[in-house]
C-alpha cells in the first residue's frame, strides 16, 4: 500500500514536472522545422514561473467562479493524468477510476473552463466557450466509443488492467485496435487544441478556441490553465503510449530497476510523440471551424465501427 502511494506520488510529481518540458520540446521541434532557432525547451517553465509571480488582473464583473475555475480545471486534469499508467501499472488510485471516469474528469475540467470563459461577459469568451463545447460534444462520445472498443478487447474498463492486457502479447494485431489508434489520435489532437482543429500559438484571431476562452485570464490563474493544458497533453500522449506502445511499463510489484526502465521508456515515448506532433503540425493547415464536425465525426464512427466489430466477434 505504501509503495503504491509512493509510486502514485512520484507519478503525479513527474507528470507535473515534465509537462512544460513536453510543450517546450514540441515548440522547439516546430521552430527547427520552420528554420527558426526557437526558444529554449525550458521556456515554458520560465513563463509559468513569471506568471505565478505576477498580480492577477480580474475583469470588473468577474465572479468567484472565475477565480475558482483555474484550480478546479487544473485539479481535475491533474487527477485524470495521475490515473493513467505512465511508467507503472497498478498505482494506488487506479481502482478509484477507470477510463470512463478519466474521460469524464476531462469533461468536468472543460465544463468549468467554458463557464469561466462566459463569466466576464465578453464576446471572445462566448465564441471560445461555444466552439469548445461543440468540439467536446463530438470528441467526448468518440472517446467513449474508443474506450468501449478497448474495454471489449481487454474485458475491462480499468486502465491498469487494459495496459497489462496489452503487455501480455496475446492481443496481436487487430483491426479494431488500428481503428482505435486512428480515432484516439484524432480525439487527442482535437482535445488538446492542436492544429488542424485549433492553433495553440495563435492570438487575436477569429478562429481560436482555447485561447479565446482563456483570454481574460492573467497571472497565477493563467499559469494554472497553461499548466493544466500541458498536463493534458502529457495525459493523452501517455494514454496513447500505454495502450498502443506499452513496452517498458513496470508491472505490479516490480523492483527499482524495472521502475527506472519504465520512467526511461516513458520519457522516450514523450520525446517521440513530441517529435511526431511537431512534424504533423508543421505539415498541415488549420481547418475551418465548421469542418471540425466532420473531422471528429470520423473519430466517432471509427469508435462505433470498432465496437460493432467487437460485438460481432471478440477476435476482430
Amino acid at each position, binding site marked *: 500500500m505504501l509503495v503504491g502511494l509512493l509510486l502514485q506520488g512520484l507519478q503525479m510529481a513527474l507528470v507535473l514536472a515534465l509537462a512544460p518540458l513536453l510543450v517546450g520540446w514540441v515548440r522547439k521541434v516546430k521552430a527547427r522545422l520552420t528554420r527558426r532557432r526557437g526558444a529554449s525547451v525550458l521556456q515554458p517553465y520560465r513563463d509559468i514561473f513569471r506568471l505565478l509571480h505576477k498580480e492577477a488582473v480580474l475583469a470588473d464583473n468577474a465572479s468567484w467562479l472565475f477565480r475558482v475555475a483555474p484550480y478546479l480545471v487544473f*485539479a481535475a486534469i491533474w487527477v485524470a493524468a495521475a490515473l493513467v499508467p505512465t511508467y507503472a501499472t497498478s498505482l494506488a488510485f487506479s481502482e*478509484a*477510476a477507470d477510463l470512463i*471516469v478519466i474521460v469524464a474528469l476531462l469533461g468536468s475540467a472543460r465544463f468549468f473552463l467554458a463557464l469561466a470563459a462566459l463569466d466576464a461577459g465578453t464576446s471572445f469568451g462566448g465564441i471560445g466557450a461555444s466552439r469548445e463545447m461543440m468540439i467536446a460534444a463530438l470528441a467526448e462520445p468518440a472517446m467513449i*466509443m474508443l474506450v468501449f472498443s478497448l474495454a471489449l478487447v481487454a474485458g*475491462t474498463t480499468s486502465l491498469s488492467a487494459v495496459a497489462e492486457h496489452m503487455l501480455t502479447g496475446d492481443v496481436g494485431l487487430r483491426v479494431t485496435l488500428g481503428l482505435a489508434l486512428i480515432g484516439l489520435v484524432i480525439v487527442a489532437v482535437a482535445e488538446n487544441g492542436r492544429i488542424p482543429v485549433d492553433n495553440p500559438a495563435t492570438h487575436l484571431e477569429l478562429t481560436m478556441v482555447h485561447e479565446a476562452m482563456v483570454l*481574460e485570464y492573467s497571472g497565477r490563474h493563467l499559469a494554472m490553465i497553461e499548466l493544466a493544458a500541458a498536463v493534458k497533453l502529457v495525459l493523452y500522449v501517455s494514454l496513447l503510449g500505454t495502450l498502443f506502445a506499452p513496452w517498458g511499463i513496470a508491472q505490479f510489484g516490480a523492483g527499482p530497476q524495472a521502475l527506472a526502465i519504465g520512467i526511461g521508456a516513458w520519457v522516450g515515448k514523450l520525446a517521440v510523440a513530441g517529435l511526431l506532433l511537431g512534424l504533423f503540425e508543421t505539415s498541415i493547415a488549420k481547418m475551418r471551424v465548421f469542418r471540425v464536425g466532420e473531422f471528429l465525426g470520423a473519430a466517432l464512427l471509427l469508435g462505433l465501427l470498432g465496437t460493432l466489430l467487437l460485438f460481432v466477434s471478440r477476435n476482430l
Partner: protein
Amino acid sequence: MSVHVCLFAIFVLLSGCPAGIWAARRPGGSALIYSVCAAVAAVMAGTALGVLVRPGETAGAVLPMGVPWLQAHFEIDALSAFFLLVINLGALAASIYGMGTGRSEPEAGRILPFYPLFLAGINLVLLAADAFTFLLSWESMSLASWALVMAHHRQSETQRAGFVYIVMAAFGTLALLLAFGLLAGTGGNYAFSQLRQAGPDAGLGVVVLLLVLIGAGSKAGLAPLHVWLPLAHPAAPSHVSALMSGVMTKVAIYALLRILLDLLGGVQWWWGALLITLGALTAVMGVLYALMETDLKRLLAYSTVENVGFIFIGIGLGMAFQANGMNAAAALAYSAALFHVLNHSWIKSLLFLGAGAVLHATHERRLDALGGLIRRMPYTAFCFLVGSAAIASLPPLNAFASEWLTLQAILLSPDLPQWLLRFLVPAVGALMVLAAALAGAVFVKAFGIAFLGRPRSAEAEAAQETNRHAGAAMTMLVVLCVLAGIFIGPVLHVIQPAVAAIVERPALPGFGIADIAFVAPTGVGGGSYSGFFVFLFVAMSAWGAALAIHRGASRATRRSPAWDCGFALNHPAFQYGAGSMAQPLRRIFGTVVFRATETVEMPPPGSVEPARYCTTQRDPAWDLIFTPVAGVVAAIADRIDGLQFLSIRRYLAMMFAGLVALLILVALWR
C-alpha cells in the same frame, strides 16, 4: 402498518384540497397548506425508507370503497417503496419552496386546492394494488396537474399547453385502461394479485406492451409522445414544474415497470430492443431540443425528455439481459435505471426550483434577458451550478454514477445471443454518450447565459436573492445530489430491494451499505469507480494547488475593465446569447433533424435599420405525427358532424341497425 401510515397521510393530503380553498383567501394560509404537505411528504419518505431498509414484509390494506364487487386495494412492496421515497423527497423540497413563494402568488386560489390533490394522486398511484384504484389515482394525478398548469390561464401560451396536455393525458389514460382490460381478460379480476396470475397469451402481451408504452411513455415524455411536456411543465408555477418534471415522470416509469415486469411478466428480448431504441432516440432528440431552446424552463423540460431516455435505455438493457437469463447483468442495468430515476428526480427538482427563483426575481424565463445573476443571487447560482454539473454527468456528482453503471451494463452486452441486440446496443451506447456530451453543452449554455456575464435586461440588473425557504429547499436537494454521488454504495444498497422485486439476482459486489469507497459491479478486474476518492482527490489537489500558490507565489489581485482583445464596445448585447452559444452545434445537428435555417437580413446601404439574424427550426414530431393526426381527426369530426342534424326516423333506424349489428357480433363471438 406502513401502508396504514401512508393511507392516513394521503387522507390528510386529500382534506388539504377543501382546506386549500379556505386557505387561499387568508394571509398565511398558503404557508399552512404547504407546511402540511411538506410534513406529510417527510412522513411518507420516512415510511418508505423503513420498508426498503427492512425488506421482506409486503404490507397490504383493503378499504371498502370503489366499485361494489371490488374493494380498493393498497400495498407497499419494495418497488413502490423505492418510488415513494424518491417522489416524497422531491415533494418535500417543492413544498418547502412553496412555503416561501406561495405568499406572493397572485393566483393562490387556483393552486392551493390542487397542490395537495396532486401529491395525493401521485402517492396513491404508487400504493394502488388494483387496476381501478390505479387508474383513478392516475387520472386524478393528471387532472390535478392539469389544473395546476392552467393556474395562470390568462396567458395564451398556457392555454395551448393546457389543451395539448389534457388531450395527451386522456389519450395516455385510455391506453392504460385498455392495457388493464387486456390483462384482466374476461374474468373481471382487477386486483394486482389476481392480474399477476392471469397472464394473457403472447399475442395479447404484445398489445399490452404497446399500450403501456403509449400510456406510461406519454406521461414520462418518451419521444415522439413528448410534445406536451415542454409546453406543460414550464407553464405551471415553478415548484409544480419541479414536481411534474422531477416526480410525475418517475410515476410513469413506475407504471411501466409495475405493469410490464410485475403484472404482465414473461419478458421477451425484443421488448428490450424496442425500449433501448426508443430510449436512445428520446435521449438524443430531447437534448438537441434543449440545445436549441432559449427559454430556461423549456430547456429544463427538454432535458427531462433526455433523461427519461437514459432511464428507458437502462430498463431496456435490463429486459434484454433478463430475457436471456443473465440475471446479474439485468440487476446491474435495472440498478442503473433506478439510480438514474432517483438522481434525475432530485437534480431536476433542484434545477426547476432554481429556475423558479430566477423567474420570481426577474419575471423572465428567456435566457437572453438574463445574465450576471451570480453576483445578484449568489446562493441560487451556486445551487443551480451544482445541479447543472450534476445533470451534465460530471464526476463526482450523482448522475455520472448512474451513467457509468449504464455504460458498464452496455459493456456486458456482447454476451447477448440475439444478433439484433448486438448491433443495436453499440449504436444505442454511442447515441447515449452523444446525448450525455451534448447535455454538457446545454448546461454550459443554461448556466453561463443565465447566471454569468453581464445583465442583459433591467430586470436581471435589479434581481434580488431568493427567500430562505427556497434556499432551504435547494440546499436539501444539493446535499442529496452530492451525497448520492459520493456515497454510491449505500444508495445502491437502498435500491437493491426494488431491483430484487423485478429480477431474481445474485448479490452484486460493491453494492453493500458499507461499500462507501468503491463500486465494481462486474467483479474483480472489471472497471471500478469511487465517487468518494475522486471527490477527495480532486478537492485536495485543487485546495493544495491554491494554497501553494497563494503562499509561495503571488496573491495580488487587481480589478480592471474586461480586456476582450481590446474590443472597446462594452454593451451587454455584445455578449454571446443563448442562440449564438448553440449556433455551432445547431449547424452540425439541427440542419438535418430539425431543418434549422439561419437567415440574415441586411438593410440596404445607407439605411439606419438594424440588421436581423433569424433562426427557424421545425419539430419533426409535430410535422410528421401530430399535425397529420390532428388533421385526420378534424376531417372525421367534420364528416360525423352531419349526424347531428338528422330526423327522428333516421335516428331510430340507426339505433335499430346498431342493435342488429351488435347482436350479430355476439352471435358470431360465441
